[in-house]
């Protein structure tokens, strides 16, 4: 893991800024601050946080890329983590059973039983790091490392809305039906996105999610 941020290109369409160090909330808060600043720059269309990284899409790609990189590094070095005040939202989850089709894979990989997995998963308060993947989907930080299970070799073509899943060291809830390469361990009911509202996503960076065990199907 490098000590310096890594800046790379996504074609001529965007710049990717990756924060150094372990995946954590403080660098994420630092990136929220960087995003607020970079979003104001004339070359930048949108500043999109990811998991301890930031994508800057170009309004018009600048000829002076070196200047932009320097400005970005400087803004990172000169700014501080910005703790966004958010809400705490609780989601009831049915763990296992037909809506947790990959629970057994997590059991086998982690060596833990279903009850332990459900309790470890529902214990923390998960900060919303970023939105991405599909409309309203939240990338959450703070999952217990003992639950980490690699993304699936063969993604599932269609997993339903509300699927609670684990991908690598991350966890998340799908906001609509679609393909997924993560391990789905349960299901919750929640409306995450309404295109007629402003903002259309119900959750935002700075909010926190708690999963509550509604039922464990063994």
């Amino acid at each position: 893991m490098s000590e310096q941020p890594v800046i790379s290109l996504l074609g001529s369409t965007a710049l990717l800024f990756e924060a150094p160090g372990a995946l954590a909330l403080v660098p994420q808060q630092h990136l929220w601050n960087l995003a607020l600043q970079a979003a104001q720059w004339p070359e930048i269309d949108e500043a999109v946080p990811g998991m301890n990284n930031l994508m800057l899409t170009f309004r018009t790609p600048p000829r002076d890329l070196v200047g932009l990189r320097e400005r970005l590094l400087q803004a990172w070095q000169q700014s501080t983590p910005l703790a966004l005040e958010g809400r705490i939202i609780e989601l009831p989850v049915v763990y296992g059973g037909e809506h947790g089709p990959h629970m057994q894979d997590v059991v086998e990989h982690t060596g833990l039983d279903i009850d332990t997995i459900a309790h470890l998963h529902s214990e923390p308060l998960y900060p919303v790091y970023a939105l991405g993947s599909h409309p309203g989907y939240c990338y959450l930080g703070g999952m217990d490392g003992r639950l980490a299970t690699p993304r699936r070799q063969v993604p599932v073509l269609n997993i339903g809305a509300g699927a609670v899943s684990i991908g690598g060291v991350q966890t998340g809830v799908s906001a609509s039906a679609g393909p997924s390469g993560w391990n789905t361990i349960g299901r919750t009911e929640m409306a995450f996105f309404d295109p007629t509202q402003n903002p259309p996503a119900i959750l935002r960076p700075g909010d926190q999610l708690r999963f509550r065990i509604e039922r464990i199907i063994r």
Partner: protein
Amino acid sequence: MIEIISATALATVQDTGRSGSLGYGVGTSGAMDQLALAVGNLLLGNPEGAAAIEIPLFPFEVRFIQDCAFAVTGAAGEATLDGQPLLPYWVMQAREGQVLSLGYPTSGSRAYLCLAGGIDVPPVLGSRSTQLRGEFGGFEGRALQQGDRLAAARPGLSEGPVDFGVIAPSQALALHCDGVPAMRVLPAAEYECFVEDSRNAFWADDWKITGQSNRYGYRLEGTPMVPVAPIEIRSHGIVPGVIQVPHGGQPIIQMRDAQPSGGYPKFGTVIEADLWRLGQAPVGSKVRFIHCSYPEALDALDDNRRYLEEVARLIDLHRMAPRQGH
């Protein structure tokens, strides 16, 4: 207004795409061939980014419920208006009751049906593009079906000239490598994480566009790409053109309806100026990739812009020329 009269799948209303909502998890969508969309709109005197119907499967038939000028750009195939041949990249006046029929393409893979004024559907989050995953935007947030009726913003008889065409981008901006259609690629963050043989093969080999290729992503078939060591990537924002290499080593090029974020290693990104070439590459065809630099990628965008400006200029001149009866 037009009515879809053929059974159809995968045809969607698209404009240039939805920007500004990546932070909500909403990808850009938008036309797979942005140049075809722009030219079709220019032929009709529409705003360049007006919405049109993107047609990936054929045959495709519509009936004009009202008089309306229209243009068909993109893939070239056997096209007729009430049985009369229609040439590619052409603008025509349709009369109420006439049937437009688009047959299988002989070149390209996606056709664009543009209507005078653009397809009149409500914009959602700033765009008329169809967001299939979120089920909003475009025509009722879904692919078009037989029986659907779509309105044009400016129906009736065209005030501007009709019955002419333009040279297609495939002619004006042709790019090939050893006789195979080519796209320029900028290396991405994990480029060096792949073994040298894989990197060399990526640039030297033909890549086949497999049948599992669509608006979400193009799955390529070729020599599997081997990472130096297993790579775990944190989820991060991506854009159309990003070439991901999952387990198995067969690359997937993320396209317009791809997730706006991803966690697979990325080898490179097809430059924005060349995405239209991919959009027109048929399933089963071969493509080549050309290594390019960031300044070259910007130059390519300028080339595209110059082509559109030239087309716009000539259409304006034609518009001003004294009209003769037809």
